[in-house]
Every structure is written in structure tokens, then in C-alpha cells.
């Protein structure tokens, strides 16, 4: 499938992921999921791991999905997608877009081995990670994508570790396409989904998806927060095509990390009296390292 630049840049709204789901107001994951399905189109099978997205969008009898949707377990979305792909091959059906999707918990932690296996076996599947930086569906527990300093129900004093770098881990499987995206730039996000689906083999897209409930911000700030995540350098935007990093999004005006942190309740303890300026400094250091490393 070779698409023109014009087709790739076209914004898609097809209502394949519809109203009535139970996500919180302003949920970044609900927005991301709609953008992904609308970019992919009708000829798509979604294999979704347990997590907020699966729970809020699929209750019987009124799911939001207007495409085939499979949910099995928390840990096995990639294994299910691999099976679907193998079945299509065996039945000589297709082509069809198969998108395995899961939260950060399912991607970084419990579903990690099944993703790694899918990549290693070379299935023609796109994996989309909706990264909201904790296990939201069960009450905001820490995951290995939870950033330094963030308060979760299992890190009430703030998370002590840095975030696992999943896009680079995915890329190191030698898969042909890896990209990062955020929900504020819907054109870029949809272009990446369409680009990925035009490539044969395993693909990985990592989408930052703010969670108003877990991050402690008002739903109206979802887009603004994504923008700040990029402009601080905390969430670099790039693509890795055949092992080469390209399309690194330059930061127009660099913003100090405080601007990003202070909008979110999960970081508020850092700013309180007796807070942790050293943690803020370390977060700034992470941003600086990203800026240098990715040449943002």
C-alpha cells in the first residue's frame, strides 16, 4: 500500500469509535483510540488488552466499536493479535489491518513478553500503546512507565525510578517501524498510524495519553499537557524507520519542566513546602538529556 503524502496527511474522522463510552471527561486514551481507529478505517480488527480502554468502551450491549473487537486478557493482546494474523494467513484471507492495543501496564509490564514474542516472530501487526503512565483502571498503581516523582496509589511519596524506554526497546527488536505521538497533534498521530499500516511486519506506536483522573488535572487540559510534555523535552516525538531515527520533532521554544509538572496533581507534592526541588531538578535533567540525545 503506497499512499501519497496528501493521503497520509489527511485528517480522518469516520466515527468508528463512537460516543457513549464510559471514559472520564477529557480522557486522553479515549481520544487517542478514536484517532487511531478512524485513521485505520473499517478494514481493521482491534485486539485490546484489559485496561481502561477495554472496560470503558466494550460493555454489553452497547460497545463503542464499529469494527471487530477482541478482548482476551490483560497480558496477551499481542498473542491474540498474532493468532488472528496467523489465522488470516492460513485461511488466505485479507489483507486486513490488525491492531493490538493496550495501556502502559499491559505494554511495559504484564504483556511485555507477548509483545516481544510477536515482534520477534515478525507478525504483520501494529501495536499501539496508550501510555497514561500508571495502571489507571484498577486505581492508579505504578507501572514501569510511571515517571520519576509521580504520585500513584502505590508510590504515595512519589515514584523513585525513571520511566522505561519502550520505543527504543521495540526498535531494538529490529522491527521496521516505531513512532511516538501525542493526542494534541492529531494530524501527526493519524499519519503515523497510516504509515505504520502501510508497512509489512510488526510495528509499534507509543502514544502519550493524559489521564485527568490519575494525573490530577482538569479534563480540559489534556491537549495542553501533551503540548507541554513535548515542549519540555520529556516526551520526544520521532519515528524509527528500519532502525533509523527520523522526523524528530524540534521543540519551537523550550519550556522548563515545572510548567508541565505544576498542572498535575500527581506532582503537586514536589512543589509543596518541604517539597522536592532535587526531584524537579532531576526531572529537568531527564528533559535535558532527551533534548541532547534526540536533538530536539
Amino acid at each position, binding site marked *: 500500500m503506497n499512499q501519497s503524502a496528501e493521503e497520509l496527511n489527511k485528517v480522518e474522522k469516520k466515527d468508528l469509535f463512537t460516543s*457513549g463510552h464510559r471514559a472520564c471527561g477529557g480522557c486522553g486514551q479515549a481520544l487517542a483510540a478514536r484517532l487511531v481507529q478512524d485513521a485505520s478505517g473499517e478494514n481493521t480488527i482491534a485486539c485490546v488488552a484489559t485496561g481502561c480502554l477495554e472496560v470503558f468502551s466494550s460493555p454489553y450491549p452497547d460497545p463503542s466499536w464499529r469494527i471487530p473487537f477482541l478482548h482476551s486478557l490483560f497480558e496477551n493482546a499481542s498473542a491474540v493479535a498474532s493468532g488472528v494474523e496467523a489465522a488470516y494467513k492460513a485461511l488466505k484471507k485479507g489483507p486486513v489491518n490488525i491492531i493490538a492495543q493496550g495501556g502502559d501496564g499491559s505494554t511495559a509490564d504484564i504483556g511485555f513478553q507477548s509483545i516481544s514474542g510477536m515482534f520477534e516472530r515478525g507478525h504483520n501487526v501494529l501495536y499501539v500503546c496508550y501510555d497514561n503512565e500508571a495502571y489507571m483502571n484498577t486505581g492508579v498503581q505504578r507501572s514501569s512507565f510511571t515517571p520519576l516523582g509521580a504520585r500513584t496509589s502505590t508510590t504515595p511519596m512519589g515514584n523513585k525510578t525513571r520511566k522505561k524506554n519502550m520505543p527504543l526497546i521495540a526498535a531494538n527488536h529490529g522491527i521496521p517501524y516505531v513512532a511516538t505521538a501525542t493526542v494534541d497533534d492529531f494530524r501527526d498521530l493519524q499519519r503515523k498510524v497510516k504509515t505504520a499500516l502501510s508497512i509489512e511486519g510488526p510495528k509499534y506506536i507509543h502514544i502519550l495519553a493524559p489521564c485527568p483522573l490519575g494525573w490530577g488535572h482538569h479534563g480540559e487540559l489534556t491537549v495542553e499537557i501533551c503540548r507541554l510534555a513535548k515542549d519540555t523535552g520529556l516526551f520526544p516525538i520521532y519515528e524509527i524507520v528500519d532502525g533509523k531515527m527520523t522526523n524528530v520533532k524540534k521543540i519551537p521554544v523550550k519550556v522548563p519542566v515545572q510548567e508541565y509538572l505544576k498542572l498535575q496533581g500527581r506532582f503537586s507534592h514536589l512543589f509543596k513546602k518541604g517539597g522536592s526541588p532535587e526531584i524537579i531538578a532531576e526531572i529537568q535533567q531527564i528533559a535535558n538529556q532527551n533534548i541532547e540525545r534526540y536533538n530536539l
Partner: protein
Amino acid sequence: MEKLPLGLVLDLRKVVPYKTGSWRTLMPINIAHTPPCNNACPAGNDIRGFLRVLAEKKDYEQAWHILTRTNPFPAVCGRVCPHPCEGGCNRRDFDEPLAINCSERAVGDYGLENNLQHKKLIDTRKEKVAVIGSGPAGFSCAFHLAKRGFQVKIYEANSEPGGMMRYGIPSYRQPNYILKQEIDNILRLGVELECNVKVGVNIPLDQLRNEYDAVFLGIGAQKGLSINIPGKDAENVFTGVEFLRQVNTGKWVELGNDVVVIGGGNTAMDCARVAKRLGANVSIVYRRTRMEMPAITAEIDEAMEERIMFRYHTNPVKLILDEGRVVGLLCVQMELREPDASGRARPVPISGSEAFIPAETVIMATGQAVDYDGIEIQTADKQWIYTNEYLMTNMEGVFAGGDAVVGLETVSLAIGQGMRAASAIEDYIEGNKESELSQPPVVYSRELNTYYYQPVKRYEKEARSIHMRLKGFKEVYPAFDQDDIISEADRCFSCGLCYDCGNCYMYCPDNAVQKSKTTGFYEFDYDFCKGCGLCAKECPCHYIQMTLEK
């Protein structure tokens, strides 16, 4: 046995979705807010409206019709208006305000070049209104009444219509043929005009009150005021309006070499620049400094460019005469002390600083007053005509507006007053209660999401060279390029009105913003909108507002 399908099979067509709209506490609504430019425009122009039509449709004709809904003089105002709209423009907090005044001129000129005509709203009705004075106030009132079908007749004391637009403002700023065409367009609505009739002198006001259902007084302030110093009545001493009137009627005024203009307002600048074009050396004498000058900055700058000398802190105390003609002024130097009631620094003479300034002509551009000759009417502060808030004077059925009411103001304010008076007159004749004008709230910069706008350089008009300017009375600013003005209009933020960026539609996590199949506008699906406010936050122009759930 009946073969059942494996698992549960759901027919999506029968599904009734769960209405998450019931969660909402705040609801988004679309409101066409008032942009600050419109709010600041004394003529009440829909500035955003005409700029957006230029930007989105490149349609000069529709832009002209939008402007002339309120203002029948876009080509004149596009040249002479001090454009408070630009001072209000929200873009000033982002990069630079829109060049609204230039855009207005381009649209006004397009209308004239293409012979666009006003349309009547109501064909005819029997009631008659007399308008006294054919300045912008009178013409605006006549225009709006004629559009609503009234029989209107204008009485004008001068031999030509236009008021100060004709006899005050010099033609290098506002050429006569432009004014004439815009006036002709108004007359084509069926407005009658009789010149050389001074109401109160040639015809009593009461006669008009009897003959007409209502009367509008737009008589301006025709009398030039001079300062009361010895020698002021010499024959080569003029008031500013008197001098400009003579030049504007095509009379040759013998100025001699040295001309001194007294005053710091726009009339002083005009007099000085006209005298310069007639070949004199000109200086302006002003009691305070440039900071306190009431003239528009651009006018002062242009006068300076034209090498007019400015003498600040200088106050004439006496005109020196020789055989009944002025030969110079005796002036005293002033120093500025604590501000007076007007808020401007108070000038106080420095003793022993008297100096002589030679002059062959002195022009006193030091104020104007209403000419009440034969018109007995209640005044406010013994100066300007008193009106109530619906612009009716103390005389039943006699309305007034423009400079004669508000003091020395602007063409656009006179136009706005004429329009307001027209609707008050309509209400009066129809016996309606005066309609309250209400407008939606104004949008300010902080309510916009400027992330979605890019900095773009403002259009700057280009003046002719000083040399060319001083050669005669050619317009200082030649015509603008139409495409440049369209690009300029494209800078407009469209404050308070949707311009179809699609953010609300794309960002709604609940898919609760839909594009109407009939109107093409974005609509909220309140069955599913959870009221998160993301759409309102990301709406660049503050068209969406969150309100309390009803």
C-alpha cells in the same frame, strides 16, 4: 435442533447507546462573541465580518456590503479614521494589530471602482424626515432612514455637501472625488439634497418641524475659535477652519513666506501641511510638548516628515502688526507644571522669555464652536447641543448628533451617531419604545488560545516620497494592492466567531461534536457530551464557552 451461533451475537443497529451527557455539570455552547474591534468602532462596523469575508472568500463585494450595512463612507473612513478598532484588536497582544483602516479603504475603493450600490431594506413609506447638515452625521442619518423607506431631505448651508469631510479635511488625505462618489451613492437611495439653505436663517427650524415627521440636526461646529490676544482681528490672521475652507473651495490664499500655525490638534497639522504645500515655510507653535499634543501620532509624524517646524513650550501673547497686517508674534516660553483638570501638564510662563517670531500669516487652529445662528435649542455646558440618550433634543421630534452634540470628534463617531439617531427616529415615528441595543460579551486576548496562530508581519501602507507629496495635493498614500489586503485580512484571529478550524470536532474524546449535514456548522451532541471543556479550551477564537448546566 435449531443451530445457535457460537457465543453472543449483538445486532449493533438495535443498540441504544448509554447517554453519558447525563454526567455533565458544565455545558459547552457556541456564542458569537463581540470582537474588540467591532466594540471599539464608533461607527458600529462589523470589522471581523468584512475581514473574514476577505480572508475566506476573497470577496471584496460582500465585504463592501458588510461595511456599508453600517457605514456609507468606507472609502472616506479608510483614509481619515483614527481607527480605534486597531487599538482594540486582540492581535496587538500577539504581534501587531490588523491594518483595519487600510483594509477598509481597499474595500471602499473597490466599491467605488465597481460601482456597487446600496440596497433598500424597505421600499417606501410615507413619513418624511428633514436632515439639517450634510456632514457625516447628517448623511449617515439620511442613509439609514432612506434604506428603511423614509422620505428624507437634507438642508445644507454650504454650496456643496460633505461638511468637514468636504471643507475641513485636505485633499491630500481625502480626495474630493472619493467623497463625491460616496455621497452620490447615498443620494441614489432617493435622498433629496438642497444646498445653500441655512436653517434658522433662510428657513426657520419650526417650519421644518411642522412639515416633517421628525428633524435631525447634524450641524457640526462650523465656527473657528481664535485665542484672545491683541491683533487677532488683523486681515492676515485666520482660524484653522476658515483657512482650510478657503483652500478647499479652491480659493487662492496669499500666505507670504512665513506661516505660523497655533495649536497642537489635527486641524493645526492639516493647516500646517496645507500651507507647506502652498509653498510657505511653516512652523507650529504649541504651549506644551509633543507628548501632550491632541493630534494623532501619525499626523504629527507626517507633518514632521514634511519639514514643518515644531516650537514647543511656546505661547503667543501678542500679534505684532504693521499697517493692520501681522508681521510676527510675540511669544513667551512656558514650563510644564503639575497636570491640570484635563490631565495634561499645566504650562506656566517663564518670565523674561519673550521672543519675536516673524510671520506673514498666522493661523489659529485653536478650537471650533457650534454656529447657533437662528437656532434656539437647549445646550449642555453652553456649548454643545443637549440630547437624551436616544439623541432627542429638548424639542419634541428634533434629534441631533455628531460634533454639534459630542464636541470635536471624528467622522466615524458622527456616522455612528447618525445611525443611532435614525433608529431612534424610526422608533419615535412608529411610536415604539426605544429599542435597547444589547450585544454579546466582548472577547479579550486572554480568552483566546493563540497557540493556533502564527506571527505574521502587519501590512504597512507606503507613503509617496516627501518630494512628491509637497509638489501638490496628491494623496499621500497611493492605492493598495488588493491581494496584499487579502493576506492582511487573513491575519484576523476571528475573535469570537468560528472559522472552521475543526479543533472541537477532532478533539472531543466523546465524539460529541458533529458537523451539521444541513448547515455545515459544528454542533454539540448533548446526549453524549460530558462537559470536559476540552473543546472550549482548544477553540482558538473563544467561540465555545462553558456555561452552567441548565
